[in-house]
Structures are given as C-alpha cells and as structure tokens.
C-alpha cells in the first residue's frame, strides 16, 4: 500500500507537471481495503478493480510498469494508447480492465466464475470493487442478484468513502447501512473499518475464504473517507470537515504505520527505508515509461474486430 501511495503521488505530480494526458484518479485513503483484497486473492482468481485500487492491483500482481506505461500512454503498455489511466487490465491474468460505467464489471466477474464452473475449475474466487455510488445502479442490482442465484464465489467489495464524486451518502442511498443490502439479495454481508489495515485483512480474508469454500457471494462494505479529489482535477472542497475529524477520516497508511510501530514489527528508520525503496522503484518505472515510444497513428491497425477480414474500414474514403 505504501508503494501504491508513492506511485500515485508520483503520477499526480506528473499530472500537475503536464506530463499526463487524461485524468488521474488516486486511491489515497483507500489503500488498506484495496490491498487487503489484492492480498486475499490468489493466482487463478479474478479481480475487477475500480479507480482507487492501485494498492489492490499491485498486491494482485499487476506490474508497476503497466501502471506507468498506461498513465503515460506508451505504445508498449497493455492498452497501447487505446485506453488510459485506470482503464487497464490483462483479462488473461484475471485482471479486468474497467469500463467507466459503474457496476458494469461485476457481471463480467460472474461470467468468468461461471466459465470456471463449466470448465471444472474449483476453488477460484472473483472480487469486484465498487464505491458507494455504484450501489445505486441497476448493474449492481442485476449482477449481485445474478451471482446470488448462481451461488457464485463473488466477493463484492464496496468502499463507502462518503462521496460519489461530489454527491454525499444522503443523496445516494436511504438505507441505514449499505451492508443491509446483503439481506435483500440473500448473501453474506461484512462490515469493516476501511482505515484499519489489520481489520481489512481480517474481514476481506474471511469473506474470500467463505466464498472460496462455496458459500456464495459475499458483500463487504468498508467505510473510510476519500483523502483526494474524485480525480486530480477536483479540489474536493465539498468534503465536509466534519468527516476529517472522525475516525473514518484517518489516513489508513498512518494508521498502519502506528500499528507496526506499536507492535514492534518495524521501527521508524525501517519505515523510512521502505519509503525510499518505493520511491526508487516508482522512479524507475516512470523513467522507463517516459522513454517508451508513444502510439503512432500510422502504425495503428484501426481494426475493432479480431477477424480482420470482416472489418469494414472506412467506406467511401478513397
């Protein structure tokens, strides 16, 4: 989670330095729940991250280069300049590239788990990340219900960071707690303090294990506060200072560091060493990506079909 924080801060800096085309979306404050998800998943599992899942992506096994190459629009990145920033993934490795339509990735995870069932692959789990805003969509409802009907090993991690862009919870849903929704779908519900890494590891670990053991979908609701704008273009002035004083307004990395120090698992100098090591890794990955060639329209295939002979080209163009 520290590497994610350092990497994202670097990208944010590049964004503010005019080196990034398109948006930059940070997971600041959300690293604990995200990394816990990535850690709980194993090879062969499915992960559909959302925009604040840099920590989970790294923990799931995504290369830091995929991150920098995509943000910097390199031709050699996984999306080859065709898509950018957080819209990256490698479906073959179980890492799905999110589309912008919230809730839309959950049923894709369902389908992959369904395929595992057809193919006799057992013991796999699929996790999908959502925010509080996505729980309002029809896609959320359809896909969670579908997973419940099919008893799929889906872990739906909803991080309630109090705001969907600028919209606060009270304009997003009217239930007392999002985890109550689990009852309506007939799935297990779990709540966790999203600022507490230890709690996240525990609860997500339990949820993933329960799903892996064949007990159907698990809905995890983590609470925290978004410690950045929706994107780096957003100053998040609308976030109430009231939240910042609450426990859920804590920075999960600071909480985790105190936890390490308090338990004697690390001392202050080693924390500094870790931070420096992360910075070195990030700088290397950024430097590599900056040197990579940008996509070239003349070399682009401009073909949206895998069967090239069925592609239409540009009719009427000489």
């Amino acid at each position, binding site marked *: 989670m520290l590497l994610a924080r350092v990497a994202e801060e670097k990208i944010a800096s590049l964004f503010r330095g005019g080196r990034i085309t398109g948006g930059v979306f940070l997971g600041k404050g959300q690293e604990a729940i995200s990394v816990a998800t990535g850690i709980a998943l194993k090879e062969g599992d*499915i992960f559909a991250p959302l925009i604040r899942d840099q920590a989970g992506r790294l923990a799931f096994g995504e290369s830091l280069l995929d991150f920098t190459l995509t943000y910097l629009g390199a031709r050699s990145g*996984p*999306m080859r300049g*065709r*898509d950018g920033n957080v*819209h990256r*993934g*490698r*479906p*073959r490795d179980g890492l*799905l*590239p999110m*589309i*912008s*339509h919230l809730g*839309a*990735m*959950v*049923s*894709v*995870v*369902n*389908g*992959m*788990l*369904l*395929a*595992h069932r*057809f*193919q006799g692959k057992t013991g796999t789990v699929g996790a999908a990340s959502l925010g509080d805003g996505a729980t309002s969509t*029809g*896609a959320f409802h*359809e*896909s969670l*219900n*579908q997973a419940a*009907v099919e008893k799929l090993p889906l872990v739906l991690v909803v991080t309630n960071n109090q705001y969907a862009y600028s919209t606060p919870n009270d304009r997003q849903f009217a239930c007392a707690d999002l985890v109550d929704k689990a009852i309506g779908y007939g799935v297990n519900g779990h709540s966790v303090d999203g600022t507490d890494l230890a709690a996240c590891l525990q609860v997500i670990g339990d949820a993933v294990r329960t799903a892996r053991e064949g007990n159907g979908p698990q809905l995890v609701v983590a609470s925290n506060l978004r410690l950045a704008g929706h994107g780096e273009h957003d100053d998040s002035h609308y976030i109430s200072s009231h939240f910042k004083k609450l426990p859920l307004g804590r920075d999960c990395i600071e909480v985790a560091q105190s936890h390490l120090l308090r338990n004697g698992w690390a001392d202050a100098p080693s924390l500094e060493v870790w931070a420096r090591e992360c910075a070195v890794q990030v700088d290397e990955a950024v430097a590599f990506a900056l040197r990579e060639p940008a996509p070239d329209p003349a070399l682009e295939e401009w073909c*949206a*079909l*895998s*069967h090239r*002979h*069925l*592609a*239409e080209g540009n*009719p*009427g163009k000489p």
Partner: protein
Amino acid sequence: MITYLEAIREAQRKALENDPRVYLYGQDIGLFGGAFKATKSLAQSFPGRVIDSPICEDAMMGSAIGAALQGMRPVIEMQFADFSTVGFNQIVNQAATMFWRTGESCPITVRLPSGGTPGSGPFHSQNLEALYAHYPGLIILTPATVEDAYSMLLEAIALDDPVIFCEHKYLYYHLKAESLPETALPVGKARIARTGRDATVVTYSAMLHEALAAAEELATQGWEIEIIDLRSIKPLDTDTVLASVARTGRILAVGEAWPWGGVTAEVLARVATDGFNLLDAPPMRLNSKDTPVPFHPNLWGTHRPTASTIANALRDLLRL
C-alpha cells in the same frame, strides 16, 4: 419441412453438440424452451448448458463477456430484441470494445428476436440492427431464409467477435424449407435473391420476402427487378450492391427499421459516394414510418413497408 425457428434451434443443438465451450443463457430458455420455443428440448438434451437467467439483460450480457474471456462461447437469448436495450451498455461498451482495448477476443452470440408481427406493439417489434451496427467491434447478421438462419447462426457462434444475430419473429413459423443446408455463403457476403436489369432492391430479413413479392408484381408489367439480400448488415457487402447498381442504374433500399440514419441510409450513402456514376436516378429508400411500432394490425401493416408500397416505390423509381 423445417421452419426458420426450427433452423435456429437446430443450429444451437449442433453448436452444443460440436463445441463444449458453447452454452445458452436467457430468460425462460431452460425446461420451458424459450418464449418462442427456440430452445425447446435443448435443456433436456444438454443438461447444465441451457441456463435460465433472472430478468437482467445487463448482467446476462456482462456474464457472457466474462465467460467469453475465459474461453466459453455463450449464446444469449434476449427474449425480444426490444429488451436488449437494457443490456445495451454491456454490449456496446464492454463486448464491442474488448478486443480493441485488450486484444482479447470476445466470442458472444446475442440472439435478438426482432421485427414486427401483428399485434406485437411498440415493445415487442423493434429492429435494432442499425443501432448495434453503429458501434465498432460488433458483427450484425440478419438472416432472411431458413437456410441462412441455420448456417449464419452456426457461423456466428464460431466467430471470435461478438455477433448480434437479428432473427425475425415473423419468419419463425411463416418460412419453411425442405432441409437444412450443408454449405453456405460466408458472413459478409450478400446474395442476389432475384436477378433483374431495371432496378436493384437492397434489403434484408423479413423485407426480402415483401420485396420478392413486389418484384413478382412488377414482372407482370414487364419490369425486371434485381433483389439483393444483404444477409449481414455489418460487414456490409458494398461490392455486390455496387455491381448490381452498375447493371441496373437504379437502387431502392428497403428496411423494416426506422428511417433515420439506418441501414438503408448507409447503403444509399455508399452508393452515392462510390457509385454516383452508376446511377440513372436518385437513390431511393423505403422504411417504416418514424413512429413507434403500432399495435393494431391495420396500423402495423401500414407502418412498415409491404410488397405493395415497395412496388409503388419501384414504379416511382423507374419513372425517374
């Protein structure tokens, strides 16, 4: 005799038999056999591979995309083409963009029971081929014959790209053939359904049969109308259309769908662009009226093109 509907069922049966990656997913398609019986008895023959879905077109499509990414070949039955708009987002934003974004193919077949039948009304009659054809990354098929319903559905399932398979409900029982074909034209090739020298009608799906009837009527007045069945909307076989217009000098494009920006508009745009010098008369088109599809058979019969209105349009075209 085998009907258009039975051809669709047999194609699914054959695909299930020959390819263990194939499964069917849709509302009421299991033991019930589907709203139109397109999957009748398949659930019994292929246990666990013909699956009833909840009413969730978005999640139906999303799960098909996930399964396709994991190596399966899902065949999704939308109960009516009209309902596919609920799953529109997954089809056009996820399935259609998948190969472009990730280089991973997304072999899904989405069956859309399309088109009007008497009494079906605004929400059970729509023709959405142009809507989907607008999006890059999709293949759109519109079979007009029993033979094509069979062979094109098999090819759709075999293709590695997402296919929107627009089967026409009116043809389900009205169209019959002696037997199923062994071979077929490939996707992307139009078929000349009737040869002629005076004008070309370009059409597809159920309108093919209205156009053939119109041509028969005009033949009694000495006109020889050439009729092209597009078979696939995307890719569109522009070459066959232009070659026919080169022979006849006149074109009428006919579609049951709405007029604005649809398949007929696309066909005429291509002819006007690439074949202007082939034309003896302004290119013409005929579509349904620009209103929702009406319920009552009298209104419905006037809303869409028919043999009689096609024949009238052709008489106008031949005068120009």
